[in-house]
């Protein structure tokens, strides 16, 4: 396991080098902007994966009431927020080059921003509850409820309205329109980002345990009194 973690650094370095040096920029995009796909899409994928992991461990907490499941769920939400912010930032850089402004109120941009609000609310909700058992239970219920309604925000709402966003990686015909080098680096990036997330999740879960043992269970610093 330790060896895999050590290998992740050269692996990600190779993915970044490949994204800039091996792959040709795609047609129909200004300058080098198409290279953002190797960073933007894996960030979005990792954020979605993190929120799914949070939902799975929330369900596990409600079934077994094991505090470790709650710690993992909370850590996954924190990391999901980090990757969602990176998705917004990389998307905004692309938007500035292609559409002339960092923020265009495009349905996909807006829906991802709301996704950040959705899971930031999870942390606010937890921070407002004093009792650790109740905090974990209410947090788990919210995370599961949010996971059920999240697809409407991320997948349905942007499709109800017109969008400037380029075609998604898997298009409406179910095909991936990429040449072999692009596809190779793209999927290598997805694997790398996923591995990075799993590593960070382990660290953040351990940190969560240390924080709780130290009595710092209120990371946002919001007082519980009304």
């Amino acid at each position: 396991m330790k060896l895999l973690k050590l290998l992740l650094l050269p692996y990600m370095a190779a993915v970044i080098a490949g994204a800039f040096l091996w792959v040709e920029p795609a047609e129909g995009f200004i300058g080098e902007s198409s290279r953002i796909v190797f960073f933007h899409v894996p960030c979005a994928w990792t954020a979605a994966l993190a929120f799914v992991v949070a939902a799975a461990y929330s369900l596990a907490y409600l079934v077994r009431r094991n505090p470790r499941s709650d710690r993992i769920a909370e850590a996954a939400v924190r990391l999901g927020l980090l990757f969602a912010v990176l998705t917004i930032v990389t998307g905004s850089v692309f938007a500035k080059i292609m559409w002339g402004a960092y923020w265009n109120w495009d349905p996909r941009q807006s829906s991802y921003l709301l996704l950040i609000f959705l899971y930031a609310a999870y942390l606010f909700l937890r921070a407002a509850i004093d009792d650790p058992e109740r905090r974990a239970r209410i947090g788990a219920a919210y995370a599961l409820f949010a996971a059920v309604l999240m697809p409407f925000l991320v997948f349905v709402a942007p499709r109800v309205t017109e969008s400037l966003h380029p075609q998604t990686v898997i298009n409406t015909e179910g095909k991936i329109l990429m040449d072999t080098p692009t596809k190779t680096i793209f999927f290598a990036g997805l694997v790398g980002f996923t591995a990075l997330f799993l590593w960070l999740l382990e660290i953040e879960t351990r940190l969560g345990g240390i924080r709780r043992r130290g009595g710092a269970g209120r990371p946002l610093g919001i007082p519980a009194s009304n």
Partner: protein
Amino acid sequence: MTESAPRLGFFARAWTVCAKDAAQELRRRVAAASVFFFAATSLALVSFAIGPFGLPPDVRGRVDASLVWIILFFSAATGLPRAFVREEETGTGLALRKLVPGVVVLAGKALFNFALFLAIAALSVPAFALLLEWRIGSPAALAAVVFLGGWGLAVVSTFLSALVARGGQRNVLFVVVSFPLLVPLLLPAIAATIEASEGSFAWTPLRVLVAYDGAATSAAYLLASAAWED
């Protein structure tokens, strides 16, 4: 020898909770009246700011539909979160928790919130149409949108009210947790309202509303005990 009371079914017990909330609201009147007052104030504000001639005709349908739902959403947001918060404030939460299963309480309070929303809509929408000369091409389509949108709004608000009821900063917290979850409901509701004002049923947004309502109701049903019971 005393006979035990007949055991009521799920819907009968939910209806009892709904009737209890309605009786409480009718007795105090302040909360319900403030919701309607908020709706009337926002309506007057919109009417002053825009008026019937303030918008070009090509954007009027879109803007009017958005304003109607903004008024409905914020008016409802002042009243719907009180469902569980009131129980904690009056100290009746513990008794309710011991006597009635969480899912029944949630269903009863969602029913009451839905009725409250329909009452707000029944007053606000015709008033909006009258004050801003908003022509509704298909009242049946608009009624379907209000009904479906209202149910989703009531269920999600009631569930979230249960979550925030025993937290600190309840009112602020409710706005923080509810807004991102209700946007996927409001967007198709506005899209369907635009179509309804033009005289047609917008089937795609209506189907999205049905799916959203189904998902929210199922999730709330399954998670009710985790949200409310100890």
